[in-house]
């Protein structure tokens, strides 16, 4: 730097500082909004089908009566929370279109992400109203932020969330909101989304959990809780004059007049209720039931339909995790031997009615999934070669392999899911046949989960859901290897994988990110500390004939029935159904079971075929 330039700096510095002070001292409301080049999107198709009709009652069930109507605080994360969030309380400012993945307006009509990747301005929809008629403004969002920070909500995980995610949430103008995230992100609209809480109805003083435990608060969504009989059922009713009813993306959504949710503690009993026609919809959650119990009267007579809808949703991490801190798994050959001894096909055909697909990638179902990976596959010969390379060359007296130091090829699998015990005993027998001993240890689910985070295990079953975008940092960062209580349960990480993760996290060029993640995915597979289990990229459900769905049923990114209410009840079909049921008359069986509008099944089966061919 030349002397001239330096003196200029000296001159300008106080001026710059002064300007900065002025900016900082300016009241928030005085921010210059005219310069903001707002972004919006009206070009995507509506989520639902615009021909949907309003009306009717939708009958469904839940396994236990909700302990609270709050969405934060103790007990607020039960199954009922799904209903509350989806239909009454937690609407996004900007959301992703569940089929196109583009951002679309919801509570905010426009938005703008600043170049820092963490400051977002939202222009709120001036039409938005609380169900009690009060306007919904930026102050309600700031209120949520304050609520999440408050100790009085007695919800440490939300407190933590508020600390980790939000730098500040500011009311710039009554209808302009500014959210500043904690860290830079290339998808700040997903990361720093926040919902509104009615400021005029919710105070944050001490006693929050008790005060709002069963309070029916004003809602922003299309449904309001109108009836609750403790222990038996709750009813949501549709607001006829809901402010969002005619918005472009809401066309054809939220159609039924009432949602009647009955408490049926046992899933099989709920199935019986469905067979009798007392529920409108039923989710089939086991392969066995799907394979063996779907041939009942209502299906044969066409009063009910069964569908297996293939959806495209990230599958998360699901499989055996080996702890690299334990000596036995520090040997890569031993890890690879375990991979080759895991007989997915046998488990799938013999125990799961061939219903599932093997996972290969650590990022299955996301656009960062490396589809070129070939599964290890069950191969005792390769397994034996690896075992020998690992030093396990001869069998001990009990038939378990031992190495030169006399150590047995034996480890303990700790797991928290009793439902998987069936599969694990079969895996154990296969391992044993080839000289590897796997002891089974069932733990209370909470303990198993915590032991995983604390790396207090040799092998465990790892099960985590994933968002639309994988988060490799939390699973594979070297930084997390040094500490405990995180999702890097395997204690893996190298300087090279860290650099790949950094590319994914910070590089704004998508091609670079994809390339880095493909490489990371391949490295994870080669390191062999994660034995992926299976994936179920579909929803299996039954519904009564009076219920009508759009042509592609649910949007592409659907995980559960509560996600998107796009179905409706057709009054004429309902009459026809009632008559047919009364007269024991058949409507003709619906024989189309598999629906694959997003070509997910095609893709997965093609990939498996290609891998098998290699």
């Amino acid at each position, binding site marked *: 730097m030349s002397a001239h330039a330096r003196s200029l700096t000296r001159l300008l510095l106080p001026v710059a500082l002064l300007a900065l002070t002025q900016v900082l001292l300016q009241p928030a409301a005085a921010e210059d909004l005219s310069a903001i080049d707002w972004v919006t999107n009206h070009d995507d198709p509506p989520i639902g089908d615009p021909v949907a009709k309003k009306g009717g009652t939708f009958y469904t069930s839940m396994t236990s009566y909700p302990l609270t109507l709050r969405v934060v605080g103790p007990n607020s994360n039960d199954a009922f929370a799904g209903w509350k969030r989806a239909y009454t309380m937690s609407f996004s400012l900007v959301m992703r279109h569940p089929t196109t993945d583009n951002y679309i307006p919801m509570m905010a009509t426009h938005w703008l992400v600043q170049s820092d990747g963490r400051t977002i301005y939202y222009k709120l929809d001036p039409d938005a109203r609380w169900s009690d008629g009060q306007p919904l403004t930026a102050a309600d969002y700031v209120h949520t932020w304050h609520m999440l920070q408050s100790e009085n909500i007695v919800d440490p995980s939300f407190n933590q969330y508020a600390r980790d995610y939000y730098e500040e949430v500011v009311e710039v103008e009554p209808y302009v909101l500014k959210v500043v995230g904690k860290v830079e992100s290339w998808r700040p609209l997903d990361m720093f989304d926040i919902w509104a809480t009615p400021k005029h109805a919710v105070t944050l003083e001490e006693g929050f959990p008790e005060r709002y435990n069963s309070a029916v608060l004003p809602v922003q969504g299309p449904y309001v809780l109108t009836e609750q009989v403790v222990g038996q059922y709750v009813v949501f009713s549709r607001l006829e004059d809901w402010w969002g009813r005619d918005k472009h993306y809401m066309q054809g959504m939220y159609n039924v007049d009432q949602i009647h949710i009955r408490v049926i503690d046992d899933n099989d009993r709920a199935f019986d209720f469905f067979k009798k026609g007392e529920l409108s919809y039923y989710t089939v959650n086991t392969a066995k039931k799907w394979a063996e119990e779907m041939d009942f009267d209502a299906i044969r007579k066409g009063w009910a339909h069964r569908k297996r809808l293939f959806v495209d949703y990230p599958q998360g991490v699901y499989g055996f995790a080996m702890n690299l801190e334990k000596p036995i798994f520090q040997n890569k050959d031993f890890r690879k031997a375990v991979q080759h001894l895991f007989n997915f096909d046998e488990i799938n055909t013999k125990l799961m009615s061939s219903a599932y697909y093997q996972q290969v990638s650590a990022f299955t179902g996301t656009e960062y999934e490396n589809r070129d990976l070939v599964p290890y596959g069950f191969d005792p*010969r390769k397994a034996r070669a690896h075992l020998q390379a690992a030093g396990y060359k001869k069998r001990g007296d009990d038939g378990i392999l031992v190495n030169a130091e006399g150590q047995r090829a034996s480890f303990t699998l700790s797991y928290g899911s009793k439902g998987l015990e069936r599969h694990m005993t*079969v895996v154990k027998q296969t391992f044993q046949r080839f000289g590897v001993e796997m002891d089974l240890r069932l733990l209370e689910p909470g303990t198993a989960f915590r032991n995983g985070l604390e790396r207090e295990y040799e092998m465990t079953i790892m099960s985590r859901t994933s968002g639309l975008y994988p988060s490799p940092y939390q699973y594979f960062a070297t930084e997390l290897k040094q500490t405990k209580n995180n999702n890097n349960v395997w204690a893996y990480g190298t300087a090279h994988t860290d650099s790949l993760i950094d590319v994914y996290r910070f590089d704004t060029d998508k091609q670079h990110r994809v390339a880095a993640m493909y490489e990371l995915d391949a490295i994870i597979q080669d390191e062999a500390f994660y034995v992926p289990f299976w994936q179920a990229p579909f929803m299996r459900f039954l519904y009564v004939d009076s219920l009508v769905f759009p042509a592609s049923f649910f949007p592409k990114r659907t995980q559960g029935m509560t996600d998107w209410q796009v179905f409706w009840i057709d009054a004429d079909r309902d009459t026809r159904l009632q008559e047919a049921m009364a007269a024991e008359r058949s409507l003709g069986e619906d024989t189309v079971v598999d629906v694959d509008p997003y070509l997910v099944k095609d893709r997965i089966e093609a990939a498996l075929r290609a891998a098998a061919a290699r």
Partner: protein
Amino acid sequence: MMRWRLNPITRKRLQRFRRIRRGFYSFAVLLTLTVVSLFSNFLANRRAIVVSYEGTLYFPTFQYHDMATFAQQDEYGFDDVEADYLSLQVRFAADESNNWVLMPPVPFDPYEPDFDYAEPPPNAPDSRHWFGTDSQGRDVLARLLYGFRISILFAVTLVFVGQVSGTAIGSLQGFIGGRFDIYSQRFIEVWSTLPFLYVVILLATFFKPGFLLLLAIMALFEWIRMTYYMRTEMYREKTKEYCLAARSFGASRGRLIFRHLLPNCLTPLVTITPFAVVGAISALTALDYLGYGLPAPTPSWGEMIDQALASQNRDKLWLSIAPFSAISITLLLVTLIGESIREAFDPKQYAQYR
């Protein structure tokens, strides 16, 4: 050393027990079953009992022999995996050699899945699996048999430990009395309110669960019941004239307890023990059913019931008939024994007017 000579009353009680036929026969049947079950490894096992091969006798029941031993190979060309005795039997029968294999009556162990059926498990009973297979393809009869052995051994050991320590502690409480009795009784009250199931779950997170650990945990709670009875018995007996007489003759404490008091306090011990066995079997079954008992894949009745009650198995009757009848029969036998003992020891029997 103490020597208990059976006093005439006790002898009379035993005779009476022998005369109550349902009790006596139940006892005989249960004893036989128990003894037989000790030899489960020779009754249900995929390892042969004896193999005669090339002039050498092999006894593989407790010994691992690989395929190479009998010139076998599996489908991957491996010969170091465990020998397959069933196919060995078929081979020897076909090749007309002097080699032979003696298989157990049930040639399956309770662990190995049998996936040789076209249909996925559970498979209905047939000539291969007399009681069918469970949802992992394992032989139900083998699991039932091994499950019985585990249940009965567990229950008898647990009850033995519990009754002996309970009797000792309860007797001391009653005999010493005073402050010792008050404090120990308060301790027992506190101890007995500990939620047993939670303690089991908690300890299972720290220690690797197994037969002995589970036994130890349950024994921590098993002794309590017996103390109540023995304490009151002691309190009552020690004030009786025969005890005072012995004391006035200068009998030592040990003699007093073992020679005079204990034999007269034994009625509750004897009558409660069979019902304690029932309780212990039920408790183990319940724990296994919940998944906090013996670790998988230990054959256990509780786990079998769990499978039988699973929704997808509701129409697989053989899965429920086997464990339910086994449990009912066992508990019935034990209860009949207990009932007969109680009757034999009933003081009303000795009333003059009978």
